[in-house]
């Protein structure tokens, strides 16, 4: 059973190699890529089932001991992230198959597209499954290297220009991450996360904080948290719609996942939780104000992405079980919805020929199906009641009330305001693109939207509606996931054995109350 853990990384890598060999057979490439992703989705579902039955799964590669070798670990959080991400990547791949057929094939080297896409999937899975920091770094690098290639597909002027900023910022974050790993190895003598959890607990608070801040900066660049988010709205909009959809949905969430692990497993009850909350509030406000000011559909969506990263950081910053559970649910919701919106933006671009809101208009009459496909995820993003966005936000606000400090109340106000402004930004898009008289150019542009593209978008919407309908069981699942990441003993116990888990100083008990007296006494004395 543990061997299954290797497959989400191995399968796409093998698939990438084979698709690269099949570069002259586009159909075969596509088929193989789809089969690989379906297999990963199935494996993720099986893993999610087993994790709920048996607890944390651990695979020691090559039977090395966890201190020396590579371990892959899957707990509830990992399994959920894998399931959602593999579904999204699958839907986007199907969507993109129609687009590369319908648009100019000569300009985009499709031969590269599928192998790179599969490598990206391998990197994302590796980042989710990594049981040690260095493997996490390698996973990040794999997904970043493939994202560079996907962002510059075709090498046109605007893409090269956008990718330049993206590459520089990402490489910078990698250098910071690497030096943080070096510092952590010097301080704790290991990079295995379970081992680190035990050893970092014993370090002095000052050292702990420096290590935590270094890793936080590296991850926050990837997650596009406010002071480090300027690169995102510049680089994402120029890429082809499906690529942007995957980037927006997954890459930033890999960053958030890493921050979540950092704040729970490695540095629990962090000393900088107020800093996290401040960054969350600023991301929410500044991101959404940016979105309101934009006149290009994809740029509006990119800015709302920056803004909504703040919601997830809000939940992480509180470090309570309620907050974590809401965050985990929100991450699943946000991956789906943000990707769907970018896919819908791709449909609009396909029909209207542009994403410039000034040039668009009248699409509701001309393309009612696209209007529906945009409307549902847009309302979901804004958090209109029946949808999952509403449930996630209510969860976060409830956690904020229970948190009960001034920072919590300020953030509740900011997140409600952001939610309203999101609705405003969405209404602005709707006003410009779907209402108004269509320009002659758009009426004259008789393009049939491929069924595969609308089908894939519909599948994503159905998935996001499923998150709404099954919100009850999912929230329970998220709650248990949150409990186990905060408790830390299941993770450390599964990797290192129960004796090591008993050495943990900071953790919560079954009722969710904090147990960190021992450490406090020792530091004080």
């Amino acid at each position, binding site marked *: 059973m543990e061997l299954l853990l290797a497959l989400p990384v191995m399968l796409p890598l093998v698939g990438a190699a084979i698709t690269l060999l099949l570069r002259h057979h586009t159909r075969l490439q596509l088929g193989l890529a789809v089969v690989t992703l379906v297999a990963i989705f199935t494996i993720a579902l099986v893993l999610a089932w087993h994790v709920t039955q048996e607890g944390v799964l651990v695979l020691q590669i090559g039977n090395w001991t966890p201190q*020396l070798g590579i371990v892959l670990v899957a707990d509830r959080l990992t399994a959920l992230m894998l399931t959602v991400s593999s579904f999204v990547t699958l839907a986007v791949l199907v969507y993109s198959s129609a687009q590369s057929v319908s648009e100019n094939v000569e300009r985009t080297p499709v031969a590269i597209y599928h192998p790179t896409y599969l490598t990206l999937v391998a990197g994302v899975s590796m980042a989710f499954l990594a049981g040690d920091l*260095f493997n996490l770094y*390698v996973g990040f*690098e794999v997904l970043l*290297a493939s994202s*560079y*290639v996907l962002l*510059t597909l075709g*090498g*046109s*002027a*605007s893409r*090269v*220009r956008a*990718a*330049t*900023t993206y*590459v*520089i910022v990402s*490489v*910078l974050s*990698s*250098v910071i991450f*690497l*030096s943080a*790993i*070096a*510092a952590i*190895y*010097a301080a704790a003598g290991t*990079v295995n996360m379970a081992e680190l959890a035990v050893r970092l607990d014993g370090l002095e608070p000052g050292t702990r904080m420096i290590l935590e801040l270094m890793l936080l900066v590296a991850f926050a660049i990837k997650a596009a948290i406010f002071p480090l988010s*300027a690169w995102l*709205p*510049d680089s994402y*909009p*120029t890429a082809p719609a499906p690529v942007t959809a995957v980037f927006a949905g997954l890459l930033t969430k890999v960053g958030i996942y890493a921050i979540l692990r950092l704040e729970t497993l490695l540095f629990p009850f962090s000393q900088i939780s107020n800093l996290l909350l401040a960054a969350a509030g600023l991301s929410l406000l500044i991101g959404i104000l*940016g979105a309101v000011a934009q*006149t*290009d559909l*994809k*740029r509006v969506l990119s800015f709302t992405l920056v803004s909504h990263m703040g919601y997830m950081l809000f939940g992480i910053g509180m470090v309570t079980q309620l907050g974590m559970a809401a965050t985990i649910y929100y991450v699943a919701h946000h991956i789906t919805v943000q990707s769907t919106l970018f896919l819908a933006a791709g449909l609009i671009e396909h029909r209207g020929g*542009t*994403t*410039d*809101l*000034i040039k668009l208009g009248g699409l509701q009459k001309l393309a009612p199906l696209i209007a529906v496909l945009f409307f549902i995820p847009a309302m979901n993003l804004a958090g209109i009641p029946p949808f999952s966005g509403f449930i996630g936000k209510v969860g976060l606000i409830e956690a904020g009330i229970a948190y009960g400090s001034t920072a919590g109340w300020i953030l509740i106000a900011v997140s409600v305001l952001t939610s309203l402004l999101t609705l405003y930004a969405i209404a602005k898009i709707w006003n*410009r693109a779907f209402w108004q008289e269509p320009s002659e150019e758009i009426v004259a542009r008789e393009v049939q939207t491929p069924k595969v593209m609308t089908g894939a978008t519909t599948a994503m919407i159905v998935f996001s509606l499923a998150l709404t309908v099954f919100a009850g069981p999912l929230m329970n699942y998220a709650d248990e996931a949150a409990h186990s990441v905060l408790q830390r003993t299941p993770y450390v116990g599964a990797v290192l054995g129960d004796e090591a888990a008993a050495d943990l100083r900071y953790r919560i008990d079954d009722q969710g109350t904090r147990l960190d007296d021992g450490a406090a006494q020792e530091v004080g004395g």
Partner: protein
Amino acid sequence: MHVSLALLLTAGVLIACGVYLVLERTLSRIMLGFVLAGNGVNLLFIVAAGPIGTPPFEGSGDPESMTDPLPFAMVLTAIVISLGITAFGMALAYRAWQLFGHDEVPDDVEDRRVLRRRRRRSEDAERLPWSQALTEEARRGALAQSQGLGAREAEDPLGSDLTSAEDVPADATEADEGDADALREAVRRRRDHRRGEAAALRHEIRDRTNDEEDI
């Protein structure tokens, strides 16, 4: 822990030089900066490995006196990764040079937009403080512009690629040999069109002046 000062100083100098180069404007220098900084960080791993010991081979001696091999394995991985990323960065710089004739990192789009707005404003009224600088007409114009009702603005020296539209014509390279003719054709047609318009305008002006002379 025993730390070698020489290693630490070398790492510091490498990272400092790397940071200096990263602050440059051209992509190729920035990539060189990352190579230097990356090497500095790799040295930090070697510092983290601790004091020098015997080679870590099974059965060659006392495990206590061996060097810790794990950081070296990580450094090797990091070197391979940075090799690949550097290759990509240099390829990107080369492509930028092919397209634009230089590999300078572009300004932030929002910064450019703010700069443009300020220029437009300072053309209107230079001496007044900004609160009074806008006439009623200009303010209405700006409102209309922001609502997308105003006329499209003329060609801007800062470039107009504020949207995702592919409005920057790519220079023909070896890669699109076949397209080059089509591109030249399109450029020629556009030029002819403009000439035609100018000729029509001249005609009209001449006609009008003739009319006036007749009167």
